């Protein structure tokens, strides 16, 4: 693993990724069952085009941007905090709990009562999980306790979700639950954006505040503390930021795997492996990855409502493997 280690010039990298995200965002607005030029709808265009743009394409593109960014960012923060490249946003049990909330809303028929009962219920699930996590971990600064509590919470929420599936009254309800859990950005509205947006923004803000601490943590917890880092504060920022951001993302899009794992991993060598610099880069990378995957979903099988979470995993897993094998070859 030698050579080219210093990575690209950081501002250049950020600018390049930002341009990539902007391009994909534009395509996300333009591509669908009909091609619409987003710029033309600003100044005129047909009423139908403007409606499609405002009601369907724009919320979808915005959610792709926000959800992808928060997944990439949270993955980078957790990998830095735990100093483990296998950490990912689902680790703390937040996604599983949000899913459980959503599944309960579907099962209980709340979805029929109010259109936004599902994301709200998922959000409540995510927030309850962070309260539970904090209660389990307490004030201990021990990182291992945090991981174990997250694993326990994930298992519990997973088991309860399975129980709901098990008890579901009819196959249609079970199907709806399974489809929701696969993760998708289809048929979301600006209300979803308004619902998740503030939480994702606040979550991202909290996560970005860990940058310095993550840099110092490269030298281990003890040296980080001797460099003036408050470990309890750092952990709280990472947990709360992930709970708010990823919880809200899961609430509106379902559980989308692999983005938070693969994106930080992929981009780390480009920032000279610096965990603080990885944060903005991972947020941009996550947004680009999810926007691209959502475009693929629309292009490959337009008629079949292919689920986004399925595509991210199908692209993500082999790519990840190829990457790891490549790294190993270079090391040898």
């Amino acid at each position, binding site marked *: 693993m030698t050579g080219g280690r210093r990575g690209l010039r950081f501002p250049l990298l950020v600018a390049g990724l930002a341009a990539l995200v902007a391009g994909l965002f534009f395509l996300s607005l333009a591509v669908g069952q009909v091609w619409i030029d987003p710029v033309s709808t600003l100044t005129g265009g047909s009423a139908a085009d403007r409606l499609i743009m405002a009601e369907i394409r724009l919320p979808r593109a915005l959610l792709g941007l926000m959800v992808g960014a928060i997944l990439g960012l949270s993955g980078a923060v957790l990998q830095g905090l735990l100093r483990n490249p296998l950490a990912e946003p689902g680790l703390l049990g937040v996604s599983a709990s949000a899913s459980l909330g959503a599944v309960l809303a579907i099962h209980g028929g709340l979805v029929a009562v109010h259109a936004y009962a599902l994301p709200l219920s998922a959000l409540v699930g995510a927030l309850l999980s962070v309260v539970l996590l904090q209660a389990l971990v307490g004030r201990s600064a021990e990182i291992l306790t945090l991981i174990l509590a997250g694993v326990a919470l994930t298992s519990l929420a997973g088991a309860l979700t399975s129980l709901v599936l098990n008890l579901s009254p009819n196959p249609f309800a079970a199907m709806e639950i399974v489809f929701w859990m696969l993760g998708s950005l289809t048929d979301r509205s600006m209300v979803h954006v308004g619902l998740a947006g503030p939480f994702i923004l606040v979550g991202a803000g909290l996560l970005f505040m860990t940058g310095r601490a993550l840099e110092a943590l490269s*030298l281990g917890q003890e*040296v980080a503390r*001797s460099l003036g880092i*408050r470990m309890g504060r750092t952990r709280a920022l990472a947990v709360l930021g992930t709970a708010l951001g990823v919880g809200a993302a899961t609430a509106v899009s379902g559980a989308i795997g692999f983005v938070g794992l693969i994106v930080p991993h992929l981009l780390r060598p480009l920032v000279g*492996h610096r965990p603080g610099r990885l944060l903005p880069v991972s947020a941009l990378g996550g947004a680009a990855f999810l926007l691209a995957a959502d475009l693929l979903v629309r292009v490959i099988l337009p008629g079949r409502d292919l689920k986004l979470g399925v595509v991210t995993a199908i692209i993500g897993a082999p790519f990840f493997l190829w990457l790891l094998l490549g790294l190993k070859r270079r090391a040898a």
Partner: protein
Amino acid sequence: MSGLVCDRITVRRGDRLTVDSVSFAAPRPQLIGLIGPNGAGKSTLMRAIAGLLPASGTAVWNGEDLAAMSPARRARALAFMPQERMVHWPLACRDVVMLARLPHQGRFAGPSAVDRRKVAEALAAMSVDGFAERAFDTLSGGEQARVLIARMLAQDPEVLIADEPASGLDPAHQIALMQMFRDIVAGGRSVLVSLHDLTLASRWCDRLLLMDRARLVADGAPEEVMTADRMARVYGIAVRPLTIGGGFAVVPEGLAPSASAQTSEVTPIEEEGEGNECCLPRIA
């Protein structure tokens, strides 16, 4: 009172004392060597002074209680280097050393010209500037140690506390390290360093603190602390005093005659787990 003053520092782990009421004062800058057998409590004492462990008693720097300082203020006053040499990501050496400047930087400010200069000076002082851009994980153990010492230097603190910085270095770099510590002390700073190499400790330190079974058992100039009798009692070894360049030094010669009894007495405390401090020639 100026300088470093430690008063009855006590660390409890479970129902056992791992540091038992250690007091010493260093009113003027000194190179202080902390010596003692495995499990004597050296690392624990250093961590307690650095504010990394809950401890009773006080450690005061220039009249200011180190434990009561804000973490950021303490990071500018005191640097700590643990025995474990670990960098979690394959960072470039310059980036590793630059981490030391975090306490001197604003929240979102990048490195200043001063930061860059201090890092360059630290890299040069440990003669690792030649591979500043190389990844930490590609270096040898001794080179890694020198990069981490450079990290501590770049922090530019008033007190340096280093746990076993000399272990794993070749003799030339060990001597260069001790000479550099002497220069730092001459510049008006205090250095507290734990050492297993008794010759190195006796040759270079102004003062030695000898710990045994959680207690400070001797404190003074090397020739006062390293008496044959005390070395036999604490370490279970026989030492030969030498005069090198007009100064005092000792060389461990072999196990003390009654060493077997001594070692068995010391052994239980090793469970305390101070890691692999394995540099002492305790030949069977």
